[in-house]
């Protein structure tokens, strides 16, 4: 990962198969920090459109799904003994919408989040970057392992739309009215290969 303050790469661990204890620890660390920052933002009068767009996801519940279903895989990035990012991926039941890949299975990134102290919209001094890139790369590798050739899909929260479109080179398939009007993105095998270069 990239330590923003030290301006260098630091050792991190990618965890494949988050345990209940790890999910609970992440919740116990992320939630109070986020709430503290929200209080600060309210006190400072920060405009609402600059507030974070995922206040609180229940990662324990997501970990339970990963435990209960073969189709779910949960990953985390740990650095300095703290979870810096979490991701839940669904590996069955989702097919490509892009015309050239229509009907072919993909790995669907059901949830992806960086720890709140890594978010520019939350933390006065975000600690680490590269959480997003590492987790997207992980989703692609998982897709390849599943024989989906790197195909992935996800619904982006608005603050991340541009990143998925421009920085990751994913295809923007527009707003999905079935999923809270979030923009739906997909990656073809060629785009995945390009991302990993």
């Amino acid at each position, binding site marked *: 990962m990239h330590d923003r303050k030290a301006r260098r790469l630091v050792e991190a661990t990618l965890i494949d198969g988050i345990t209940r204890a790890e999910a609970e620890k992440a919740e116990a660390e992320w939630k109070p920090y986020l709430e503290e920052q929200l209080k600060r933002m309210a006190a400072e009068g920060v405009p609402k459109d600059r507030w974070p767009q995922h206040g609180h996801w229940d990662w324990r519940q997501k970990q339970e799904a990963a435990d209960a279903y073969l189709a779910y895989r949960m990953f985390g990035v740990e650095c300095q003994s703290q979870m810096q990012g979490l991701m839940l991926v669904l590996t069955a039941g989702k097919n490509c919408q892009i015309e050239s890949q229509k009907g072919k299975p993909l790995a669907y990134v059901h949830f992806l989040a960086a720890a709140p102290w890594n978010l520019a919209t939350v933390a006065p001094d975000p600690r680490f970057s590269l959480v997003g890139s590492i987790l997207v790369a992980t989703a692609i590798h998982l897709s390849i392992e599943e*024989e989906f050739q790197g195909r992935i899909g996800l619904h982006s929260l608005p603050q991340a739309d541009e990143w998925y479109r421009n920085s990751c080179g994913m295809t923007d398939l527009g707003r999905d009215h079935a999923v809270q009007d979030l923009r739906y993105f997909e990656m073809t095998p060629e785009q995945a290969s390009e991302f990993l270069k």
Partner: protein
Amino acid sequence: MQTGTPSRKTMTLNLTEAEMQALDELSATKDISKTAVLRQALRLYQMVEVRTARGEKLFFEHDTTKQKAELMVL
């Protein structure tokens, strides 16, 4: 970076010709191996079973008409 690789076991399947054909067709359509097709089937079956055991029902919804129907075709 470290990741875990689960150990794998081998199994032999006895399928009818019709089942084998369906498996071949799905493998070709989905562009994945026959093993990967069966993995998909197992994962979906498990999800259906866990949720129906909880009292939920499996429905299909037509994209245009929004008409709902249970798993049965007819």
